[in-house]
Every structure is written in structure tokens, then in C-alpha cells.
């Protein structure tokens, strides 16, 4: 098939070919432009995270996906240096992105956000909107929040399931605070709602 080689296509072609084999390219760092070096860094970070996630996932499978047994085993190895939540993030990342989903234009922090189980119901939708677009993690979090709030619109607000969902969501957002701070935040929120009435 003949390809018309516009300048854009030619640049895309060279970018595609130059992305070859990280090991080889690392031998030629002095020949790369600043942009190419940044691209290499991102690419290596993504690949490393994916492979780490795959390895951890495989390990966990060997313990019947039993997190307690898996954790006990990890604690006996050098992998205990990696925080538990980091291991979980890596596994989630590998599970989501290994399903034929490229990480083009997606930073690692965005990838972690998309692959987090708490975002599972909207992950594929948000992923399709951000892939290839270099959107910041703050913007992606906002997209999830907006998507979450939209999912409540039009629903019967008195429904116990909906109310519990909202409470769980709020709880998950303030989970890192101590009880005193949690109450303080909620009081502020209540006051703001009252003032808005």
C-alpha cells in the first residue's frame, strides 16, 4: 500500500521507528533530542511499572489471590521495601493496561488514577477520553468527580442505595484525616450548603 509521505506522517514514522527497543536506544542517548530523552524516560517508566505490576500479579496468583498470604510472603522478601499500596497500584495498573490498552500520552499518575478500583465503573470511558491527549492527573480526577456526580443526577435522592453511595464516596475522600478533622470538614460543608440556601 502506497503511503503519502506528508511531513507529519514522516515525523510520525520516524517517531514510531525510533521508539524501538529501549535497550538499543539507551546506547545512543547523546544522539537524542531533549524531547526524545523525555519520551524515553516516560516510556521506560511506563514499561517498568507495567512489568512490575505483571510480576506482582503473577506472584499474587500463586497465593490464590489471597492478600494475607501474599503479603506474608512479600514480607519475607526484598519486595517488602515496596509499600503495600504501591504494590496494589502496580497490580491494578497492569491489569487495566494489559487488556490491549496503550498508555500513549498517559502519565503514570494518570494511569494509576484510571486503573484504581474505586474508578472501575467509569475507567474505560475516561480512558477513551484521555488516551493520547496528555491530560494532567488533576484534570483526570475532576473528570471522574464530574462523572460520579452526573451519575447521581436524575436519580431518586431518597433512595437508600443512592444515599449510601454518596456517603461512601464522601467517606473515601476524607479517609486520610483523623476523626476531629473529618467532623470539621463536614461541618464546613454543611455550613456552606446552609448559606447557599
Amino acid at each position, binding site marked *: 500500500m502506497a503511503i503519502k509521505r506528508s511531513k507529519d506522517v514522516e515525523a510520525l514514522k520516524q517517531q*514510531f521507528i525510533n521508539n524501538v527497543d529501549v535497550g538499543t536506544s539507551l546506547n545512543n542517548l547523546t544522539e537524542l533530542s531533549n524531547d526524545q530523552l523525555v519520551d524515553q524516560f516516560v516510556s521506560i517508566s511506563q514499561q517498568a511499572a507495567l512489568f512490575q505490576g505483571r510480576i506482582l500479579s503473577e506472584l499474587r496468583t500463586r497465593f490464590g489471590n489471597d492478600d494475607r498470604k501474599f503479603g506474608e510472603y512479600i514480607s519475607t522478601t526484598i519486595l517488602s521495601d515496596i509499600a503495600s499500596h504501591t504494590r496494589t497500584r502496580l497490580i491494578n495498573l497492569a491489569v487495566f493496561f*494489559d487488556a490491549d490498552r496503550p498508555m500513549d500520552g498517559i502519565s503514570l499518575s494518570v494511569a494509576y488514577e484510571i486503573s484504581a478500583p474505586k474508578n472501575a465503573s467509569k475507567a474505560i470511558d475516561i480512558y477513551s477520553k484521555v488516551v493520547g491527549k496528555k491530560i494532567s492527573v488533576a484534570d483526570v480526577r475532576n473528570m471522574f468527580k464530574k462523572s460520579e456526580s452526573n451519575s447521581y443526577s436524575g436519580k431518586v435522592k431518597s433512595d437508600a442505595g443512592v444515599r449510601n453511595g454518596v456517603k461512601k464516596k464522601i467517606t473515601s475522600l476524607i479517609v486520610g484525616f483523623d476523626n476531629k478533622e473529618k467532623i470539621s470538614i463536614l461541618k464546613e460543608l454543611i455550613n456552606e450548603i446552609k448559606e447557599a440556601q
Partner: protein
Amino acid sequence: MIILIASQKGGAGKTTIATNLAAKLAIDSDVLLLDADRQPSATEWCIERKENHPKRPRVNCVQRYDDIDDTLDDLKDRYEYIVVDTPGKDSIEMRSAMLVADIIIIPVRPSQTDLNTIPVVSRIINQSKKINPNVKVFGLLTMASTNSQVKEIKEATEFFLDFPSIPLLDVVISDRKIYRDNMSEGLSVVETGNLSDSAAKAKEEINLLYKGIVGGH
């Protein structure tokens, strides 16, 4: 038509597929086998064929390395089929050939370590499709054990369901001595005089591969 045989891992039988397919195509077509692997097994096969079987259907051979898309673009009008054998890794040769190929065959053994390369290969192919959107891509299970292969084939087939951009060909190429014997002689299993059951099955595999690729195109 440019047919690229590519994979990210060695030992999947790329050269076996490339040479057998090239010889099968050469029965009634003008064929070039382009060896882009610096371990030139396909070229050695060509030399054996030329020296020992000069009356067999002619398979033209060339070696080209690095960025080969311009070369392929240039050669494609001179041959009905160009079969490209690439190194068993992500390489400039593989990527540049992807940009002009009409068909990409991804040979893969039905083993976990080999199947683990598919997510990366899938990503590379998806990237190449931005430039070469009409390329057809097929996975091909190769080097399958002739004993108790049903389970591993089934599991590998299920694995590929997660990668709809790489549909599996129906045929499975088994690990048979007859392939190795014919490789070293510069022949294809479709040309062998061996009348064994294994030879007949290998011949059938290559004929089915041919039909799957050329017949379905």
C-alpha cells in the same frame, strides 16, 4: 503484497514460517524473501536451495537491515509477494516493515513466556496502524507440542481473545522435526519427498497457512 513475519521474542519459528510460506507462494507466483535478521537463517536457507535445488520454484532472496520500508516500497511492484523475516525482538527492521506491510503474521508459541510478549506487540501494532491503517494482522500459534497440545492451544486461544487487534489464524503450526530437516536442505515441507504421517501433517499446516493468509486476503 508484503507479508511481514514478526515477533518480539526469538524461537517462535519466524524463519520456518517465512521460508515455508515463501516456497509455497513460489509455486505459482514471483516471490522475494527479504531477510532482515542479522542472524541470516533465511539467507542460509536460500543459499542451500539455490545450490542444491536449482530446479525448484525460484525464491529470490535479499538481505536488508535497519530502516527497510523504503526498500520494500521500491521492491513491492517487482514481485507478487515479498515475505519479510525480521529479528526476534523489537527492532528498527520490524517497525519499519510494519509501516508498509499488507499482512503481518505474529508467530507465537503457546507458552506463558511467549504470550506475555503479546500486549507489547499489540501496542506496537496499534501505533503502526496510525501510519499504515489498512494492514491486516494475524496471530499464529507455532512450535506447538504434538503431544497433549489441546489444552495449551485452548488456553493460548483464550488469551488472544483479550487482543482483538490480533485475530488468531485457524491453523496451528506444530513442532515437527520435518520442518528442521527441510530448513537445513533449503526446502519447504510442501516440497518434501518424505511420505511420513508427520510430513503430511506439516504439509497440511503450511497449505492451511497459505489459504488463511492469501485466500482470505
